[in-house]
């Protein structure tokens, strides 16, 4: 359910970038969502549809989710492994001295804008 809160954060950031670049409409927002970020892409896009359509700037704007697989690293045997499959324990040497390399992202990568306010003047 925190997807709605995250959608509000995305809207705030996108609005700010749009203002700085004199953009009048955003047609696509591309997000990187990590596999273990606790954000569920389907919930995120549902919340997005509901909230984005209330804004002139974002009406009809598509939220594109690029999933990022979670990968952990073992500090003892220095190998990488799939986090979701093996958790905190290294599958090669059974060490618990492991940490997440990637897969925790909730990032706005880029936005696609269809026209800028400069063009109309």
């Amino acid at each position, binding site marked *: 359910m*925190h997807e709605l*809160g995250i959608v509000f954060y995305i809207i705030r*950031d996108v609005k700010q970038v749009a203002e700085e670049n004199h953009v009048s409409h955003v047609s696509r927002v591309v997000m990187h969502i990590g596999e273990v970020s606790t954000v569920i892409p389907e919930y995120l896009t549902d919340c997005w549809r509901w909230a984005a359509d209330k804004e002139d700037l974002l009406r009809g704007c598509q939220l594109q989710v690029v999933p990022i697989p979670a990968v952990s690293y073992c500090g003892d045997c220095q190998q990488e492994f799939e986090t979701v499959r093996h958790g905190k324990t290294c599958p090669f040497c059974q060490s618990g001295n492991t940490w997440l390399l990637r897969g925790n992202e909730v990032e*706005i990568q880029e936005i696609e804008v269809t026209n800028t306010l400069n063009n109309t003047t």
Partner: protein
Amino acid sequence: MDEVKIIEIKKSVFADNEKDAEALRQELKDKRVYLLNLMSSPGSGKTTTLIRTINLLKDRLRIAVMEADIDSDVDAVKIKEATGIQSIQLHTGGMCHLDAEMTRQGLDNLDMTGTDLVILENVGNLVCPAEFDTGAVRNAMILSVPEGDDKPLKYPLMFSVCDLVLVNKIDVLPYFDFDLEKCRAHVLQRNPAAQVIPICAKTGEGVEAFADWLVAQVQAWQEQ
């Protein structure tokens, strides 16, 4: 025809909240107020634990409580009636968590003159509140025995952001397959620096240790 343009952003959506939270922590530091963010699942005994602890501490520290819930003010009323301290209710408007901005708005409604410690009782939930830095000095959480000792494995983020884990309802340990040592190992796997204190809010067992932890935390924060 409209020109299609791509603007690169590459920014975490939590970046602004983290900035707000850092600013709030600095302000609290200047005011010599310690803010604790207390999290847990619903029904773990947050409010009962707080009442016990506050009654132990209210002669030593000036304490205020902010209760965050989706709706109702039962917790804030209960705290005020049982302890007599300042307690306010925040409504999250349907949201499952508080962020730094909502926390600041709540603090604005508290009289903080002479206050040493503010405890934020976050929305009961083991997932969402862990994602958002509230601006608190420390995060603590309560895991109650009936929930099971495997929770640190299932909710890794929550346990990795908490400096203190209170294991509550230890009076019912004989009736559950809850292994305290296993639980401690699971917590430390997520956060090697975490402290685990077993308590029973109902009987008061172990609550003294939590109270001492709080006093030491507040003193260190005010002296730094």
